[in-house]
């Protein structure tokens, strides 16, 4: 008889202990969870990242395990917000077995590497010929360098682009070239503004495209740069477009939390243009969750005339290896595989690969825009914007009090756009508060 079985206290405790251990180690045992099938045998690599499993990481892990039969890869998703990052940080410093992890942006990556939670990858990156653009001495710089060392292998580029409702654009008879200036963007936004429709969700920014890398800092990072006239010009333009009802008012943006859910008014047809990075592709492709009938046209972010025209996005998805990893060599193998194959597996989650590897622009676009690309997108404009417009992604090297400065900037900008503060007062306060934060961080 094998039918019935008694649950003993010991077996119950065993199950409880296993479940606790699985929880502690971040294992996701549920269906569709992090433990991708296959592999088995010797080494297990634990990866923590912010992209949902089904948007690429599971496929990436499976592909790696197929090529490395002795290795099992477990992907655990953390949400890339304050709480999620803290969870990763405490897990890393607290000894949870993590071999590889992703940081989204240089500030959290350097916070971790400064605290000794990331291996120095400088020599490893230099040893790979196809990573030549990512070395610490590459020109132009395409990777984030801290005191001459590299602690992350970037896997994605996250440029911002302008999403345009093509139906509205066609109805207005607007024809666009491959690039545009801020003045041209404003003109188009005015033409697209109709009762119940804002021409754009937000005004374009001017300081970053004009000033490029380290635009927030002056004197090599000793003080902030908010006294630079581009910041005041940027705010004045935003106020002007808001007043003319060409851009959505800040009050509604805050009330509806559209800083986070910016895709909603665009897909709902409340705004004709949206300046945003690639992750909203997931919402546009999800026609059940976000039903809409228009195609999305793509343009590069507009640049102030006569400037270098830096993009407002960044290089992203930095892969780091934990110094506590028991298999750092295998972890590096996986990191390289991830960076080289990001075009093949991660693009469907809206993440453009930094290294195209063997993927052609058409293949990347096919992945990015999904199976409904011919109805949901103007594919030609996407190809032109992402691969033919000479995108210039700035790579910052100064990050002193980065999080504090970003919070100060956002709060004061909200106050100004809500009409509670003048532009001149914004400049004074942004400078004063940021300089104080820089001084405090420098102690």
């Amino acid at each position, binding site marked *: 008889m094998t039918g019935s079985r008694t649950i003993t206290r010991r077996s119950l405790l065993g199950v409880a202990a296993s479940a606790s251990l699985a929880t502690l180690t971040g294992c996701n045992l549920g269906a569709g969870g992090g433990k991708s099938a296959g592999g088995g045998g010797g080494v297990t690599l634990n990866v923590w990242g912010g992209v949902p499993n089904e948007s690429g990481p599971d496929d990436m892990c499976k592909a790696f395990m197929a090529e490395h039969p002795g290795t099992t890869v477990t992907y655990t998703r953390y949400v890339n917000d*304050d709480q999620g990052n*803290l969870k990763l940080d405490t897990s890393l410093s607290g000894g949870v077995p993590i071999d590889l992890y992703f940081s989204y942006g240089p500030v959290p990556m350097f916070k971790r590497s400064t605290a000794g939670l990331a291996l120095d990858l400088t020599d490893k990156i230099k040893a790979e010929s196809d990573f030549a653009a990512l070395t610490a001495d590459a020109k132009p710089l395409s990777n984030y360098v801290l005191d001459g060392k590299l602690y992350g292998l970037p896997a994605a580029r996250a440029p911002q682009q302008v999403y345009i409702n093509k139906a509205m654009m066609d109805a207005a008879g607007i024809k666009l070239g491959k690039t545009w200036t801020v003045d041209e963007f404003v003109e188009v936004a005015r033409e697209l503004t109709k009762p119940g429709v804002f021409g754009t969700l937000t005004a374009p920014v001017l300081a970053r495209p004009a000033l490029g890398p380290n635009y927030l800092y002056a004197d090599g990072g000793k003080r902030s740069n908010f006294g630079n006239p581009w910041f005041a010009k940027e705010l004045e333009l935003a106020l002007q477009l808001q007043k003319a009802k060409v851009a959505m008012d800040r009050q509604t943006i805050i*009330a509806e939390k559209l800083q986070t859910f910016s895709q909603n008014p665009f897909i709902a047809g409340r705004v004709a243009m949206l300046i945003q990075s690639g992750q909203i592709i997931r919402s546009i492709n999800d026609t059940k969750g976000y039903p809409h009938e228009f195609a999305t046209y793509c343009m590069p972010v507009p640049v102030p005339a006569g400037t270098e025209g830096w993009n407002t996005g960044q290089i992203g998805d930095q892969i780091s290896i934990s110094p506590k990893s028991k298999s750092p060599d295998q972890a590096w193998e996986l990191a390289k595989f991830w960076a080289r194959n990001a075009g093949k597996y991660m693009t469907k989650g809206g993440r453009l690969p930094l290294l195209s590897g063997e993927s052609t622009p058409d293949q990347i676009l096919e992945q990015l825009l999904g199976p409904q690309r011919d109805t949901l997108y103007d594919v030609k404009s996407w190809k032109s914007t992402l691969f033919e417009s000479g995108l210039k992604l700035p790579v910052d090297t100064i990050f002193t009090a980065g999080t504090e400065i970003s919070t100060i900037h956002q*709060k004061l900008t*909200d106050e100004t756009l809500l009409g509670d503060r003048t532009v001149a007062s914004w400049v004074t306060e942004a400078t004063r508060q940021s300089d104080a934060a820089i001084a405090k961080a420098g102690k």
Partner: protein
Amino acid sequence: MSAAVLAAPVSRQARRGPGGASARAGWLFILPNLVGFLAFTLVPLVSGIGISFTDWNVVSGLDGIRFVGLDNFAALIRDTGFWQAVGRTVLYAGVGVPLTMTGGLIIALCLNGPVFGRSALRVIFFIPHIVSSIAIGFVWLLLLHPSNGLVNLALQAIGVADPPSWLVSQDWSLVSLILITSWAGMGFHAVIFLSALQALPEDLYEAAELDGAGRWRQFTTITWPSLMPTTTFLAIMSMIGHSQGFGLIAFLTQGGPGDSSTTLSYLMYQNGFQYYRFGYAAAIGMMSFIGVLLLSAFFWRFQRGRGMYS
């Protein structure tokens, strides 16, 4: 009789003393609670106090903890942002606590009489207390939308030409949070007040009525003094709740616009979880704790001897 009691032999059980079998059994029974108290109350409390004297960013692990003495407290005293947050917290609790309690008391007094559907009404008033703060926040987010929210549409319908922007206004964000928090807390206060009201002896009211005391006189001389211990308990609990209030603020305003709704608890979150200044955040927590402790002691002292049955 007392002599007999005094002369009674000490039982065998008692003679076993603190190390006896029954004492061990006693320890065993309280062990789960004791472990819980140690792990989830005492250790975090002591750690919190300890961290407030350090400079620690959590990422650097335990090795990265640097003892800085009273530096965090000295910096706090010089920090205008901290004092502004103290002011907002005092306003938030100073207006929110009386408002919640008054609302709760009025509801309780109404439900204490012969009201149709009293049980159903009690449940209805209690619902906001058991619903998650995110659900409450979401509903109020829609109701207080500056242009499409029902509240402003209603205000416009009765002739208010320029209604407030509520959560999106620097002038109104804290007011909105006070109103929402008070609304959410009234049901709980009403239920507690109601149980206290129902425990009051009926004969006092009958005697007062015979002496010609009206409703208001009965309330001021019997009901209110009798409710003093309940009121003090609720005042302390509500004050602690307001000083720790975080969920609704984090969901509805994130301390903004600007800093207009950044209370002490949100400032602590911002320093700890956004800027990773855990020592500084713990110092804010300690200052907040001391403030609440002093106020609680004051309330407790104030009510002593004032309750009808105390």
